[in-house]
């Protein structure tokens, strides 16, 4: 470690991890760009899957494996499915829709490019020489993460469960009200959260599932 810290690491001689990170990063960034620019709404959701999956790979490369799998489970598994359901329920057009972008596009581009330039400049300027030593013990194994979560972060964790409960109730209320107007069918059929309380991903799924049900 001392050796590694002592030796300056140049950008022109990248390690294997760096090359992998760069390549996956390029794919991720490209997929993200396509997500926000494509005219086909369903494609946008699918490209979002690519982006989120790429990010999960990046987490793995950063040795945060628990978060990588949570990312795959929550985002790729449920959030994108939820978004697809949303697209279908709002009768989004299949195929190219010419008006996917609003008239605000050029202002958005200006703001985004300016923000990107500023952020990249600041980040590069600040962390030009900072080096992450990825060797040795992985930083984000399930054990490490679980210990830290249930030793140091248990109170925020429980508070978060209350937040999820509130979101769950809110989603039900919002959907039910509208549903009572449309059809009288299946309004009481909203499954509650699973009572095991086993960590946030499950709860998030429960909430998302409830919303899915209610929306339908």
């Amino acid at each position, binding site marked *: *470690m001392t050796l590694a810290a002592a030796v300056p690491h140049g950008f022109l001689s990248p390690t294997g991890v760096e090359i992998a990170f760069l390549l996956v990063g390029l794919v991720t960034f490209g997929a993200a760009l396509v997500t926000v620019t494509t005219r086909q709404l369903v494609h946008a959701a699918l490209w979002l899957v690519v982006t989120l999956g790429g990010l999960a790979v990046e987490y793995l490369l950063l040795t945060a494996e628990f978060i990588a799998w949570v990312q795959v489970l929550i985002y790729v598994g449920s959030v994108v499915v939820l978004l697809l359901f949303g697209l279908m329920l709002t009768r989004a057009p299949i195929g190219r829709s010419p008006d996917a972008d609003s008239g605000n596009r050029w202002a958005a581009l200006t703001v985004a490019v300016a923000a990107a330039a500023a952020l990249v400049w600041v980040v590069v300027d600040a962390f030009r020489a900072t080096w992450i030593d990825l060797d040795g013990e992985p*930083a984000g194994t399930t054990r490490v993460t679980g210990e830290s979560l249930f030793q140091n972060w248990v109170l925020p*964790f429980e508070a978060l469960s209350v*937040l999820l409960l509130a979101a769950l109730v809110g989603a039900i209320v919002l959907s039910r009200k509208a549903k009572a107007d449309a059809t009288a069918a299946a309004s009481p059929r909203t499954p509650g959260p699973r009572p095991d309380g086993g960590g946030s991903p499950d709860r998030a799924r429960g909430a998302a599932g409830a919303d899915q049900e209610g929306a339908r």
Partner: protein
Amino acid sequence: MHLVYPAVLSALLFCTGLYGVLARRNAILVLMSVELMLNAVNLNLVAFDVWLSRTAEETLHSGQALTLFTIAIAAAEIGIGLAIVLAVHRNRGTSDIDKLRDTAEGPDKDGPDSGALAARKADDQAGEKAEATA
């Protein structure tokens, strides 16, 4: 690995999401862009947590813990957000953000239409009344 790589990727993803939020018309696409921004933050958190867990003696792994929290909150947000979008779509028949302009100022939006309509209706009624009395 240089910290700059995840940091720059995070910044670029964030700005991409920013662009999507500002430029997309469909509300669900806007929600997707929001997810992009959240993920950019997550990447940042994870990268810095990994870096700090190597350099610092004691660490709470706050970056990873907060990432988990963010993911949970993002899931809740997407649930609520979709419920709202669906309700709006059901009531208004559209989920295009730039068509939901009820708070617009001035008589040249929406107001004059209904106002003119009401006036015409009142005129018609008055005319009918006049005819009836005649």
